[in-house]
């Protein structure tokens, strides 16, 4: 896919682009300090919900589910921390790697912007579109390929 950003937003410090393998390595080392934050896309995208459920099962990572994404995950047997977006910072004690998936890109960009400017944690986006406001982001990709690879890399977690 072309080198585009989903919307013309402009950042001086932009996310480093990483592949699933790198993220898998990070997770293996620092799982206990990491959390996966899921967004509302999981409600409308069954494939994504399945993939994320698998990812969580394989990695054992903590999940904070916003935007109603708790429901599909709970239905898939995942133990989630249900959370309204407005409560998200309440749940971030004891973690310093936040991995985001399943958000409207323009909203995720705002969330990441807040964190980038005012908090000191590592943010990672594994969503379809590159997120410049994250610290690390998957590049643009219009299919589930990267997340699938991530899941398979995590097999041996």
């Amino acid at each position, binding site marked *: *896919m*072309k080198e*585009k*950003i*989903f*919307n013309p*937003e*402009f*950042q*001086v*410090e932009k996310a480093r682009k990483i592949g699933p393998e790198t993220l898998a390595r990070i997770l293996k080392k620092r799982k206990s300090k990491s959390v996966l934050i899921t*967004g*509302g896309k999981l*409600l409308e995208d069954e494939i994504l919900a399945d993939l994320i459920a698998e990812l969580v099962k394989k990695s054992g990572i903590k999940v904070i*589910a*916003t*935007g*109603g994404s*708790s*429901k*599909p*995950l*709970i*239905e898939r047997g995942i133990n989630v*921390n*249900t*959370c*309204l*977006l*407005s*409560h998200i*910072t*309440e749940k971030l004690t004891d973690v310093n790697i936040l991995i985001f998936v399943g*958000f*409207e*890109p*323009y*909203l995720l960009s*705002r*969330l990441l*912007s*807040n964190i*980038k*400017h*005012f908090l000191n944690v590592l943010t990672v986006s594994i969503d379809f*579109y590159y997120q410049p406001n994250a610290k690390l982001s998957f590049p643009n990709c*219009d299919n589930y390929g990267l997340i699938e690879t991530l899941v398979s890399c995590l097999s041996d977690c």
Partner: protein
Amino acid sequence: MDINIGNGIIIDELRNITIKIGDIVDEEALRDEEWEELGPTPKPHILDLRYWDRKLLSRYEPIYMPVQDFCNLCTMGPCELTGNKEGACGIDLRTQKARMVTIACLIGASAHATHARHLVHYLIEKFGRDKPIDLGPDIDIEAPNIRLVLGIKPKTIGDLEKVLNYVEQELVRVLHTIHTGQEEDYIDFESKALHVGMLDHVGMEVADIAQIVAFNYPKGDPDAPLIDVGFGVLESEKPIILVIGHNILPARNIDDYLREHGLENKVEIAGLCCTAIDTSRYDPRAKVVGTLSYELRAIRSGIPDVVVTDEQCIRADTLRECAKMGIPLIATSEAAARGLIDRTEDDPDEIVRDLVSGNVKGVLIRDPDKVGEVAVKVAMNVYKNRKSPIYMSDEELEDLVDRCTMCMNCVFACPHNLRIDRAMELAKSGDYSYFEIIEDTCLACGRCEQACPRNIRIVDVIMKAAYKHIREKTGKMRAGRGPIKDTEIRKVGQPIVMGTIPGVIAPIGCPNYPKSRKEVSEIIEEFLKRKYIVVTTGCHAMDLGMYRDEEGKSLYEKYPGVFDAGGLVNCGSCVSNSHITGAAIKIAAIFAQRKLRGNYAEIADYILHRIGAVGLAWGPYSQKAASIATGFNRLGIPAVVGPHGSKYRRGYVGKLWKKDKWWVYDIKTKKKMEIEPCPDCLLVVAETKEEAIVQLARLCLRPGDTYMGRQIKLTHYIELSEKYLGCLPDDWHLYVRTEMDLPTKMKDRLLKILEDEHGWKIDWSKKKILEGPIRKYDAGFNPTIVEHVYDKYVR
């Protein structure tokens, strides 16, 4: 005294001194007319309510989500502010963002204030300054916002001018503070934004009161007529005048002209945005096409015979787009003169000739009265020549689809990243269904077309492909009824404050929803079924009427128009939002007997702690939405915005864990005490309708709830959470003060959880809570966070 001095007969002699008289007396009059005890802050300036704002914002912390990392407001910049760095003027990123929010609010509030100014100016010319403000026998508190903020009771349209002078002065004062340098505290900037939000509700109130009394709109009538609404209304066998914007004046004069010439059944007025709403308040025959998202669609259809624009929510390419379709345009406002030649002084028939012949693509006519005649004559003449298929022929559709290379440029330009490429791919093989899905979310903003290297008219492709689907979208909207009646308030005041009516949900604002337009109806019906009061305005009010159930009924047909449990109240256009804050203020005045006059903080404090009202702006595109919501917030009413709302860059969010923030003075026990954190946000983004629903239910909780009220509210909150989030909410226990607060049906289960998971002590024999809650329930609990209110009532 009631001496009525006519048109300057006596005055001529007083000429030189009267300016002085006017001014001196003006202030005297405000000071002296003691219709009610005067509160501490009549006509407040920026700093006068700062103490209240700082209380709010110490609980509800502003959080910022910058869209850009730099500032370029002055030529010392651009300054990069990543990580809250300071710019060349010393401002940091947080304060800069607070400044941007303030600008947005200023733009929004100015739009309403100017709208009000235009109306009042015109109405004074037509009806005179003395036209009384009379909203009928059931409305005594004619202008709750004006009473509260300015401390005056406006009696005539002329009085409204004074109100606007104040509003304009204050807006300019705040605009001044945007200047480079100066404010270094983001909370102080937010205080200015809140000030603007408050002023906005005053400006809106002026505008709506003026047009209601002058044009005899429904005056709080719960049974206001049902209006045809939806894109389908465009298809008609008559000439169609499409009116777009927010200012009723040109449209009203078109309507008058039609009636005066017996043409009311021969020519159709169809409207977009608030002009549509207000035209239908004036004449229920008028049709409502829809929101801003329908503007490009309506023009590109080629159906309208003439387009009349006034101000605010009108696309900035209207002339270009109309010209492409050969539709003559009449611009009527200084806000959008569109480069057109000013023909105000010309002979109407000459203008008509020029427009009909296509000699000119459009004209500017500043006199609303003249617009009536010209628009009607043009429409009737142009109608004769209507031709060509709507949007395009089937062949052209195929052609355009074939041209697509699936390059995704459109997808990246689209505010919703809609997958046009996929729809095109499917369409190439004959399956156009994906366009119907896209149509439902598409804003018809046209950015995809700007980005498309193949010059495909993507909006037209979508419309052509989904046309059958969309022309069926027609429904009914109850005409905007204006204010809530005092009599209604009298009835619901107590149940709302007690909490037995679980809440007031106010869907307001614009149509850039995150997904399907239908979601607004889905959210709202959930609350109507549960007997919340729903009170709506503007584009949300229109979209709520667009969708019909299996039986063909829209929400307005299924739910009554009363301000009571399970009622769906359409107040009207954007400026009618003032009636929503007005209703909250009236509850404090009528039910709680609080004095309004110049008494803002006390009333806001009352509302914050007792009135479970929440705004919902599911598609807040306009700066007016920013300012309206901010006005809600200063008055203690939380608002939930859709995900695009995050682009206004800030929320007001309380932190549950900061226990020292959740306190009140209790007037009854004379103690400062900890309370449960409710409401815990003032402005918050929700990503999905599921989250929005749960958030709305939650934000209806108030410290002042009786146990009955709390029980009802918690029941809905928990049920909705289980339904939409799949589980109990994570914070429900915080709101339990006594076992009586617990939903009856779930009582045992919840007590168990309180014991097991939260370590509360339960007396299982009596099913009583012994230990655990943040505070004890006390029926006489009388909370405030304002010292002077505490001092006033404590004995």
